[in-house]
């Protein structure tokens, strides 16, 4: 009886161990699988309705309900203190026509509202999305005052995770020391489009 019990425990342990391994692998894979960057504008797109003044610009696209973008916005809040008037910051919220404005005013909107010297946009007609072509929520564009793309990518190290990342460190180093950042990096967040929606948007 004792032998059978020991055997049962060993089998259970094996199943447990395997299950955890598979589960964690799936989770970690998901967490660390970046989203698509989309087409990259290497210069500031003139068709953008955002006015480009004689100052570097940081633009971030956010899906109002993407949980991963909460980390992106929190990381942005850590970048801003290093700003010192060097860049204009714009946060553009995705707004499909299917939903009213209340849909945009999520907790992420409330977080973004607290950022000082930051402009919030609701891209109701998807004009800016069509202009910049981001595909993933949390995607950041950094343009120099000469309208040259300095960086495109995310500012988190994995989905929904705050902490040190290539993008955040690069931007901060550029702000503090003027060090040129790597031009692109990973972005982690929800897709701004479901399948087929991008094509419909482009045709519109």
């Amino acid at each position, binding site marked *: 009886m004792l032998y059978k*019990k020991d055997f049962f*425990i060993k089998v*259970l*342990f094996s199943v*447990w161990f395997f*299950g*955890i391994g598979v*589960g*964690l692998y*799936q*989770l*970690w894979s*998901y*967490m*660390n699988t970046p989203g698509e960057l989309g087409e990259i504008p290497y210069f500031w797109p003139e068709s953008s309705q955002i006015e480009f003044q004689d100052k570097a610009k940081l633009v971030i696209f956010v*899906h109002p*309900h*993407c*949980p*991963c973008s*909460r*980390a992106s916005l929190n990381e942005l809040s850590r970048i801003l203190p290093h700003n010192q008037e060097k860049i204009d910051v714009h946060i553009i919220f*995705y707004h*499909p026509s*299917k*939903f009213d404005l209340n849909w945009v005013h999520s907790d992420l909107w409330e977080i973004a509202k607290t950022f000082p010297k930051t402009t919030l946009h609701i891209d109701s007609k998807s004009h800016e999305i069509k202009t910049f072509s981001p595909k993933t*929520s949390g995607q950041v564009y950094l343009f120099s005052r000469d309208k040259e793309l300095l960086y495109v990518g995310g500012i988190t*190290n*994995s989905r*929904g*995770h*705050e*902490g*040190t*990342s*290539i993008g*955040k*460190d690069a931007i901060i180093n550029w702000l503090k020391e003027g060090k040129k950042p790597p031009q692109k990096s*990973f972005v982690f967040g*929800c*897709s*701004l*489009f*479901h*399948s087929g*929606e991008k094509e419909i948007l482009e045709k519109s």
Partner: protein
Amino acid sequence: MGQLEKEKQIQDFIEREQKIVSQNADRSFRYLLMIEWVFGIVTALFISPKTWSGQMSEVHLHLWSSILLGGIIVSFPIILTYIRPGSKASMYAISSGQMLFGALLIHLMGGRIEAHFYIFGTLAFLATYRRWDVLIPATVIIAIDHIIRGIYWPQSVYGVLTGQEWRFLEHAAWVLFEDAFLVVSIIQGQKDMRRIATTSIELKDLQQGLQRKVEERTSEYLKAKEVAEEALEVKAKFLANMSHEIRTPMNAVLSCTSLLQDNLKNSENIELVSILKKSGDNLLNIIDDILDFSKMEAGVLKLEFKRIDIEEIVKDVFHLMSGKASLLGININYKNTSSSIPLLMGDEYRLKQVLINLVNNALKFSSKKVDILYESKKINGFFEVSISVIDDGIGISNKNQEVLFKEFSQVDASTTRKFGGTGLGLSICKGIVDTMGGEIGLQSEEGKGACFYFKVKLKPAPINESLKEPETSLIDENFAQKHPLKILLAEDNQVNQVVAKKLLSKLGYQIDIVNNGKEAIEKIEELHYDVILMDQHMPEMDGVEATIAIRKKKIKQPYIIAVTASVLEEDKQKCFQAGMDHFIEKPIKLNYLAKILNSLNS
């Protein structure tokens, strides 16, 4: 206890305690894991319930992970706490489960720094197992987590594309820092446990030692008690035998003296026999005193409680002593100084003995009068009876009062010469009153007489018929004609045989005589007898054995009357249990015997 044995016991103690600690910790973690699983689900619901693709949403992988992966992580440790509580397996499973759940929770909470406090909290909780090895699986899992993610997803750990060993150490250092503190604390805890175990074992050893000593002493005490009780029993038997051996010939002496008195015609001879009888009575009294004193010394003086009438007792003593008082020219009186006293439960014989003694002393020392005063007070359901004997004699000084109740003492030698006595009387009175739980004392001044008193507490007697039937004499030489009975006497003492024969001839009976119980049995097999007067102490077969044998026979059963010098209740009970029908004391009171014989026919 040897050192090796002691060490083994200490280890056993520690293991037992550790098992209990582990089982308790298992139980706590079982519920903690369940709570954490629910917390994980609530966290996922709150932080990341859905994932989006444009306008479309679906359940976020975090929520599925919290339910499924979280459930898997906590399940195995929880199962082990049920099937293997307190074991190393459950402990390690819990340690691993806690850390794995911590890793999951950090993911669910977005890697926030606050979530990392869970890791430190978990390590501290694990220390409740009081084993440092419980920290190993937890620490290893943290290390593996960082290594694997550092290799495969370095940006998730370090934010850079390649892993760097020193960054791993930075993360691990905090965990090892806490581990170090916890290990020190756990080891200290284990030392404390060892100290407690050692003290406990030493205490137990001491306790067992004391227990053994107590058992030894108790055994010695019981043996000594047994020896003392045996000695007491021997003494009591000796005294009982002595009482019988002395009373039997004295009975013969006094009975013959009474018979002589009835048959003498010469006045000089009558006077001589009268002196003989008085001397015999005195001798019997002295012998009784000595025997009573010996019984008190041996602690075997027993009281017999029956329904008594205090007023009758006082009256009896008054009547008994008034003759003597009259001869001495002393006026004796008695008086109840309270209300009427109801029937009580007490030893009439002993109460009379005390009162007779006190009145005798008073008559010795009094010149004109002796008063007997008695009263009772009801106290808490009992009646406190006080009897005082007051004389107008020479009185007793304070100094002499101190020694008066002590054995063998009299006031002084001149008193002994003048008044006689053994000096036992008052000490016997004190012994009797003390046995009754009462109090005896004296109030006196030299030249102003003395008041001897005693108080006893007695229970009221149950309400029943009246105590005595009026005494009438049935002694009549035609008695046998009215009550024709064939009587057999079983008695070994020849003098007593003669006495008994003479006594019964006064009632008109011619009795047959045998010398012991065996002869009595043989006799009744030849002839039927209506009555057997059965002595108790006989050679070959005593009265009890003979009665038991007679009662087994299929014959017309005779009426058996026990005749004995013993006055003890237990002796009476022995006779009745053997099958005897009645009991009379020696010396035989003829009127009492006549009453018994009279009752047989009626």
